């Protein structure tokens, strides 16, 4: 079953087409990677899906319901959560309060305070942040702030979780832990759509990969197909291999 389907979505800022006629489909239960060079429009796609910005044209469906035009808080309550490329936590609230807000407000049905409190703690436990429960979020290290963002998103009980460069700026050990976490999230039955520049992570955890370039989708398929796709190698991996190998 398709949990998310965006058809022909476009968004221009002034004269610049950030995303043009892109089709993005995500199957339920999968981990889908969204890659592309800087400025390819990946984060804009996230913003369009989460309702932060409204597409100029195209239709976005989540669980078969049209969601473009809805506000981010409505989309979140439907079961679609996200994180941000530049961490957006509530720095002057405690770690626990950050996550509690997610479980108090992110659900479709009203939850009791006790239930929300319990879910917030479960979410913290899941992301390994229970030890920092009463610390101010702004005092956490970068990797823990990123985890907190994921914990807060998970507290809203999403069916689809969108992770925007969760692994950027992490060291190799932290990347490995983050990969494990993504797989653990999938085991919970949550579909994941992730933007990532760390190729090792993308190739290892994703079921399929979508490649964007100048706002257009140029390839889509299993990791094995993507690495051998000539166009992708030319515009993206080629660059990367030259620089890296």
């Amino acid at each position, binding site marked *: 079953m398709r949990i998310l389907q965006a058809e022909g979505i476009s968004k221009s800022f002034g004269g610049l087409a950030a995303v043009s006629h892109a089709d993005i489909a995500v199957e339920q239960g999968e981990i889908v990677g969204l890659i592309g060079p800087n400025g390819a429009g990946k984060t804009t796609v996230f913003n369009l899906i*989460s309702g*932060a910005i409204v597409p100029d044209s195209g239709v976005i469906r989540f669980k078969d319901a049209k969601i473009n035009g809805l*506000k*981010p*808080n409505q989309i*979140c*309550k439907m079961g679609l*959560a*996200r994180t*941000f490329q530049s961490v*957006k*936590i*509530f*720095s*002057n*609230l*405690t770690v*626990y*309060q950050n996550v*509690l*807000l*997610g479980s*108090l*407000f*992110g*659900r479709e049905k009203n939850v009791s*305070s*006790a239930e929300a*409190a319990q879910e917030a703690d479960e979410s913290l436990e899941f992301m390994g942040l229970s030890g920092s429960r*009463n610390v*101010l979020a702004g005092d956490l290290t970068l990797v823990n702030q990123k985890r907190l963002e994921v914990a*807060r*998103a998970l*507290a*809203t009980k999403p069916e689809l979780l969108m992770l925007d460069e969760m692994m950027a700026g992490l060291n190799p050990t932290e990347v490995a832990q983050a990969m494990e976490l993504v797989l653990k999230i999938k085991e919970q039955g949550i579909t994941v759509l992730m933007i990532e520049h760390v190729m090792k992570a993308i190739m290892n955890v994703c079921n399929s990969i979508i490649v964007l370039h100048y706002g257009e989708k140029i390839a889509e398929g299993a990791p094995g197909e993507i690495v051998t796709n000539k166009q992708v190698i030319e515009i993206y991996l080629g660059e990367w291999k030259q620089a890296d190998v």
Partner: protein
Amino acid sequence: MLSFEKFSKPGIVQIILALLALIGLLTLPLYASRYAIVLLGNIFMYVVITVSWTIFSGPTRYISLASAAFFGIGVYTAAGLGMVLPLPAIIMIGALLSFCVAVFVGGLTLRLRGIYFAMFTLGLVELIVTFLRWWEVHYSGTVGRLVVSVDNTTVYYIMLLILVLAILTAHLIARSKFGLALQSIGECEEAATHIGINATLLKVVTFAISAFFMGATGVIMATRWTYVDPRIAFDLQLSFMPMVMAIIGGMNQLYGPILGAVFFTYLEEILITRFPYYYMLIFGFILVVAIMYLPKGVGGLVQKLWAKRSGGKNAHTSS
């Protein structure tokens, strides 16, 4: 236990202190001088406006300069209806009118942030003044109105009632999940909307609740003046002073804005009567010193001293 309260749960000592203060204030008119009753009424007015201002602007960090507008709407309601309706009805109407204007204005402008929102709210005060002048000149033919006066003790008791309601409301909002959500809007509004918080609705409703108390205060305080015109009713001092009082009192605890308002109203009174020529100068000097040396306000200082005294045990009870 849930710990999303902004303010720590009031202890038995605090509740007893608050009750004693309330009993003291309730019996005060029996033995206090007329001057003291009038001065306290003034202090109550500033406390209500400052606490109401803090309900919205404290956690969300949207700086509103519209206090004078909401207060003035109350004043003009009293001026317009004073002859026809009993006082409690006028107070309710004035408060609700301010509430409605705040819903309308908030719905239009709460997407503005920072200095733009502050500028707009300041403009709102001037807009209403100009509109009222135009209206009075074109339709009623006189600029300025008479207000039915009410005796000082009644004003005192009604202000005390509004004061208690405003403080209770501020306390309940801050301790509820909505208080926490308002704080998250102040921290990062984009993230707040993405975890399911209806930021627009929450901002507008809270803004309107704060306007409600300002409107009610305007109605009752108007009865002190026998004559009002738009400039008297919509005094910009009432937009700036509550903000200054809240910031200097400190907004992290409920008693901060209360302390700030009491202190500054009393200070102003003393300076005006003792040093009529230098009062603005001295007032400004104290303001500068307070901003330089008390970045978290008087409330922050009290908290710091308290933490020191109890050996840092309470150092992290509130953020």
